[in-house]
């Protein structure tokens, strides 16, 4: 007679211990670490009295969890207004993160760079080799650039303000032509992920790509994050899917669903 498991997703209401301002609309928030979380997993971040949204972790070090957010709408703008000492609610860890193995190619675009930073740190810690290719619209959107460059990352921007003026997918293709990887780890706009999925198929390696879908519960109950096709929950079995799992995602790279559950067109 098994009983309902106790939730591992209790609210951890914690003061912001520090804020790193990349620019006014792109900041990293540091909290005391009160639970374990792996690269690619996410937290639900609650503005007490307001909404709660999914955010990856951009680092865990020295007993602190770091979240990096970009202002895109009402929630993330409210987040930008939070000050050190203010209390936010974190629940987690949610989902299934990256499962590092072998030699990796790490490819990120835009805010998708955030979880990859934690992944890179973790791989370095575990002595696993990897190449890194990152892209963003402009230099100021490419956060943590110095840290990444120190680890040998190739950079690309749309306007050439940092690194090469190419698409990050082109960097990735170039690296794949030069050497053999076991896995491509990716996070960023879905169009980039579709490209990486094809690239992995072409060069014959696996991939682990972090998807985004509309999330309400984060725990595999509401169904709002379920992909068409296999029907799996991105919040629970994802957000990181491997190549075979992505083959079963019918709406990969295609319009997906909004808060009503209707397909966006």
């Amino acid at each position, binding site marked *: 007679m098994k009983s309902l498991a106790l939730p591992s997703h209790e*609210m951890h209401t914690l003061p912001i211990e520090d804020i790193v301002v990349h620019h006014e609309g792109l900041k990293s928030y540091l909290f005391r670490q009160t639970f374990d979380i792996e690269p690619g997993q996410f937290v639900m971040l609650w503005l007490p009295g307001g909404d709660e949204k999914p955010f990856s972790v951009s680092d865990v070090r020295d007993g602190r969890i770091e979240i990096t957010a970009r202002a895109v709408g009402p929630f993330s703008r409210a987040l930008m207004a939070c000050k050190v000492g203010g*209390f936010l609610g974190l629940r987690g860890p949610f989902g299934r993160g990256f499962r590092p193995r072998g030699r990796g190619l790490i490819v990120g675009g835009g805010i998708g760079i955030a979880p990859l930073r934690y992944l890179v740190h973790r791989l370095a810690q575990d002595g696993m080799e990897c190449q890194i290719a990152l892209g963003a619209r402009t230099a100021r959107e490419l956060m943590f650039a110095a840290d990444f460059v120190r680890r040998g990352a190739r950079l690309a921007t749309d306007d050439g303000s940092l690194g090469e003026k190419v698409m990050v997918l082109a960097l990735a293709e170039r690296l794949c032509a030069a050497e053999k990887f076991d896995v491509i780890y990716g996070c960023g706009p879905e169009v980039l992920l579709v490209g990486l999925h094809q690239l992995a198929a072409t060069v014959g390696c696996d991939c682990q790509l972090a998807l985004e879908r509309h999330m309400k*519960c984060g*725990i*595999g*109950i509401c*169904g709002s994050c379920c992909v*068409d096709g296999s029907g799996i929950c991105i919040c629970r079995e994802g957000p990181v899917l491997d190549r075979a799992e992505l083959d079963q995602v019918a709406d990969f790279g295609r319009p997906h669903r909004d808060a*009503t559950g209707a397909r966006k067109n």
Partner: protein
Amino acid sequence: MNPLAVRIAGIALESPLVLASGVLGTTASSLRRVAQAGAGAVTTKSCSLAPRPGHPAPCILPWKGGMLNAVGLSNPGIEGALEEITEYRRTCRTPLFVSIFAGSPAEFGELAQRVAAAKPDLIEVNVSCPNVESEFGAPFAADPAACAAVTRAVKENAGGIPVSIKLASQCASIAKMAEVCQRSGADVLTAINTVGPGMWIDPGAGRPVLSNLVGGVSGTAILPIAVRAVYEIRRAVDLPIIGTGGVSCAADALQLIMAGADAVGLGSAIYGGGIGLFDEINRGLADFLQSRGYQSLHEVHGMAHEKGKP
């Protein structure tokens, strides 16, 4: 013979376990996935005529005794729902129950008619929503006359598809409500919906967590209330019952079945157990039957009503 096979209102289920409405029930793909995981039938998220985004997160909160939710009946509206129903039908044979809700009997009738065209196996009527025609916006589920009107409106428009009314424990007498529904033409009863409402305050923030402040209580916390409700309904009427509320293991399901449920809904516990729970509970039920020398679930159905020694 499959010892777990049951039949309600002429619908043959391979397992008594039914995916409860509102859980993983919006898209054809996720419904199909749950069906493949071992559900005897799957119920869609309740749909309304117009699309509804529902309440912002936090709207689903697991807590140590179960779950709280104030999803706010988000759904893509009947148009979107029909697309999913059609797609599900095309790719999966497991019986499909479509849940509907509306603000008035007339609207319920209209919805039923549109849903019936897609030929689900059963239409489940969620009456735990505010009655916009009532003076206080009280839910239909607490008002016998309103509930009767809804039942009749849906029946008249369901084109012969079996109709289940989903009762709530928040009413003066759930047995009386069951009788009213039976007299008004219901073919099946589902019981219960969420209980409460409840509120969860995060002491660290000093604020209610749910964006809607309050939400319905489900999961383990409500199991004894569901068992009592099913027991009372079974004593009052002889309609098939889909007993729902707090089931997370085979023993819980057996409680509802012994109280008189013909089928058993499963919702919140999927959080703790994943969709593998369907298979796990199916196996637990089969093991129980075998260990006691029963050939089928029918032999224990309603047995808690028998008097005297076991």
